[in-house]
């Protein structure tokens, strides 16, 4: 059960490269590693609590109105996360901004609730949320890394803005004089980057 959730979430059913759900924030925010990581973690957290709070109440939800009720629960949870981050982690809130409320509309959250948590017990649902979220988080980090490296010639820049001043040394600058590759940073770069990533995943799958 645990092992299946890990394999499905991270590889076989990866939200970013296989299910292709929740692409809007995936493509919009992955201009660098830190943005991808922050949104990935926030989405993962929402998926964990959404899955594990809907699974115990699944018997009380009438089939006809399950989607509105799921949305209601997800929206309430996301609002709580949004308010808490705003209150207790102002810098993180500044960095993520509009993308936290937008987690509500991220298909992958509703998809996992609808296809998994509404049919399975609480613990497996929790694992499912955790590893699906982690799978998406990895894709966001890799895509963010590709775009940041090509677009700005750096990696891990801006970690200090979100996680505190102590991490400012983490930023790597690869070139002294790099004028930037704009395409990688603009939205088309996200589509191209994701396409390469999916191609790579498919290639590895075919080889095995």
């Amino acid at each position: 059960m645990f092992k299946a959730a890990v394999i499905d979430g991270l590889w076989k059913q990866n939200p970013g490269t296989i299910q292709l759900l929740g692409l809007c924030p995936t493509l919009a925010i992955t201009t660098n590693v830190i943005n991808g990581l922050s949104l990935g973690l926030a989405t993962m957290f929402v998926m964990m609590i959404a899955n594990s709070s809907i699974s115990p109440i699944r018997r009380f939800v009438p089939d006809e109105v399950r989607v509105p009720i799921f949305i209601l629960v997800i929206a309430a949870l996301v609002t709580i996360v949004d308010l808490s981050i705003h209150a207790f982690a102002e810098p993180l809130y500044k960095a993520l901004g509009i993308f936290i409320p937008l987690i509500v509309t991220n298909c992958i959250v509703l998809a996992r609730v609808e296809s998994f948590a509404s049919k399975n017990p609480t613990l497996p649902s929790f694992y499912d949320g955790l590893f699906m979220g982690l799978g998406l988080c990895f894709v966001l980090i890799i895509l963010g890394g590709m775009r940041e490296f090509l677009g700005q010639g750096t990696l891990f820049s801006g970690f200090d803005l979100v996680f505190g001043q102590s991490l400012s040394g983490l930023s790597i600058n690869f070139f002294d004089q790099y004028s930037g590759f704009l395409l990688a940073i603009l939205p088309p770069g996200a589509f191209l980057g994701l396409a390469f990533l999916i191609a790579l995943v498919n290639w590895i799958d075919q080889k095995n």
Partner: protein
Amino acid sequence: MNNFIKKNRIVGRTVLIMVIFGVFFSTILEFVYTNANPIIIKSEAEAKERLLLQVISKDIYNNDLINSFIKIKPNEKLKNKEVIKGYIAKNNNKVTAVILETRAPNGYSGEIKILVGIDTKGYILGTRVIKHQETPGLGDFIDVTKSDWINIFTYSSLKNTSQSEWAVKKDQGKFDYISGATITARAVVKAINESLNFFKENKLEMGIDV
């Protein structure tokens, strides 16, 4: 008939369950909001003061800066659409600097909000972009966390920089810009110039009579 009642019972049950869920989660949200909102207001005020402190130094004032302001009506120079605050820094009740919020409506993607700290003689003490949506990696050099370009305005004034020099170098002005993002730099230079013009015309109301 039996069927009709049965159908309506389902509708009633569904409505009831949705209402229960709605009420339950609204209550939780209300609880979280009442607890989080005071903290949010406090941390926003702190963030604002940190920002104000970046455009003027702490040594030149000793008043409660956040609560020492004049109200500025919408005007052509600062391009504000609602009444905004202009902060007045005082040292032992003598005005030492003002902080104005100016807007560049013509950024590459939308409005750019800039804080400008000006001393009593009209020299810029510091500038910070507080809000923008310029292209990440290209136009966002105006943000001090990305590049220190925004500091080139420090110690400029209407006296040491003529009106035609208030432009980017590409337009025969005095200020550097990043090639490929001229529109952004142009908008910022113009907005800062306008804030100085506003200061010149309104300094009496801010308690400066030099």
